[in-house]
């Protein structure tokens, strides 16, 4: 932040350059501290709104929003999509949408403050960047499909449902870990 404050140029390009300038990335916080802070955020979400957190629901509404733009008739004929859109209903008119926008912003600001905005691709040492992109897309596809099948992702089911002791959310959480561990050995080249 200091290097931005010290410039008086006021030029937008200069600001952007500084914003993304490569700075020494700070280390991550201790996981227990991060977890405790996350727990407080989750509690505040429940305390203020009665709802927990969510992510995949917001993405789902984005998808349905575009489907509704492109093929409104199809949305009107598909019961699952109709529950979110169709007719005059705006799929983006739901609390989970501002939560997702906030998540993006919060991640960005934290990355900026901590010098972690570098454009890069996180991957294991044995695969190429392009292979990693492909795997990220495929894994994302599984994740998106499974999250909707399970009616929630790690945020909405595991964290939110886990904290309020939902039986289904705990079963779901163990299933996620089971699925990951069951496959981990076979895809070890991706990460090690």
């Amino acid at each position, binding site marked *: 932040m200091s290097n931005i404050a010290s410039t008086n140029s006021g030029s937008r390009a200069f600001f952007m350059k500084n914003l993304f300038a490569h700075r020494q990335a700070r280390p991550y916080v*201790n*996981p*227990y501290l*991060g977890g405790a802070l996350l*727990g407080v*955020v989750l*509690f505040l*979400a429940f*305390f203020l709104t*009665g709802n*927990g957190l969510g*992510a*995949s*629901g917001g993405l789902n509404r*984005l*998808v349905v929003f575009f489907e509704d733009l492109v093929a409104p008739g199809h949305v009107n004929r598909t019961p*699952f999509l109709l529950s979110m859109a169709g007719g005059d209903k705006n799929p983006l008119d739901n609390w989970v949408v*501002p*939560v997702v926008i*906030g*998540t*993006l*912003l*919060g*991640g960005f600001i934290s990355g900026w403050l*901590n010098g972690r905005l*570098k454009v*890069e691709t996180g991957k*294991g040492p044995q695969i190429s960047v392009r292979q990693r*992109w492909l*795997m*990220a*897309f495929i*894994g*994302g*596809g*599984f*994740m*998106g*499909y*499974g*999250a909707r099948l*399970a*009616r929630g992702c*790690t945020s*909405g089911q595991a*964290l939110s*449902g886990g904290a*309020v002791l*939902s*039986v289904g959310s*705990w*079963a*779901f959480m163990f*299933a*996620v870990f*089971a699925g*990951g561990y069951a496959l*981990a050995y076979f*895809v070890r080249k991706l990460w090690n």
Partner: protein
Amino acid sequence: MAPFPLPMSELFTKFGEFSIYAMIGFAFGFVLEISGFANSPKLAAQFYFKDLTVLKVMFTAIVVAMVLVFGASSVGLLDYNLVWVPPTYLWPGILGGLIMGIGFIIGGFCPGTSLVALATRKLDGLFFTLGALFGIFLFGESVDAYSIFWNSSYYGRFTIPEWLNVNTGIVVLAVVLMALFMFWGGEKLEAIFGGKDPRQAPRLRYAGALGLLLVAGLVAVIGQPTTADRWARIAQEKELLLNARAVQVSPAELLANLHDTKLKVVILDVRSEADYNQFHLVDARRVELKELPEMSKKLLLEPANTIFITTSNDEGAATEAWKILVAESVPNVYILEGGVNNWLAVFAGEEDILPVTVASAESLRYDFPAALGSKFKAALPKLEEYQLEYVPKIELKNKRGPGGGGCG
């Protein structure tokens, strides 16, 4: 006590409400980022026991939030009945979880963390998010082909204390203990597979663990509020409604509402089985008073256009039922004015029933030629046969609270 959850759209308008959600999301994204959740190799290391950050962050968050939620509930700051508990669809949840586990180890993120990776300009986060959008699209296009499975093994709002039939406080304490045990084991695994030295981790974590245990113990000792506790908190305000007869609905209004297709009317009949079998209103459900606190959890899941009517022969038992439901935060509960006896007096023809000569309070004051339950005409009189005049008392209040839906 402040109302829970905050009636935000009334207090701050819709824009303000969405701003609050955005601020919660902001804090969520910020905390995920500082914990290192934008870094896919770090997340994937969880599955090779090298770096158990995922386990530590997730379970610390879950137990901290859990202890705070149930602590706030036990001192009356928060109403657990109005907290959104993701409903249990067991097998779709487990299958979806397994698929997500596969996606996690192949793709290196989950939907929330990929957003944070995207926001910090990680290209794998971008591709993962695109993949997730594509997977969601595929789900939307395919789920209607197997919606029977997707809606199967439904247990509603089903919590671990209900499942194990154990006191909530004990479950909270046990979950904290389980998490601490997993952290202990996790640090051992990290030492073996990741070469990490647990002695270098801050000592403060022991203090944190002890603090968490103490608060969880306190939550267990205080216990969760019973129906009687909950009623005691609101009794003063609600007795006013009872005395002003603001919640006693006339038979005429109930009949009009029964014929209103925009409403779902649930009639809860708390009389004896014998009386119920003699005569009851159409679709009335018979329940014992002592079953109502349990049942209220299910009633909370009814759609927002539901009206609950409690009935007994007169009003006494129905008023007790009303108190239980209101104490358990069930919305839109009313009492049938004068009970079933009054209903019969208004709607039953003299050819169907005979008045009983000796009648005490809360007993059925009519005799029936046969115990036909709701097969009498008076169980659902025809609307057009009556000139209904009444002062409407039912106001449908849109519940906020557990209708949201976690990732919904």
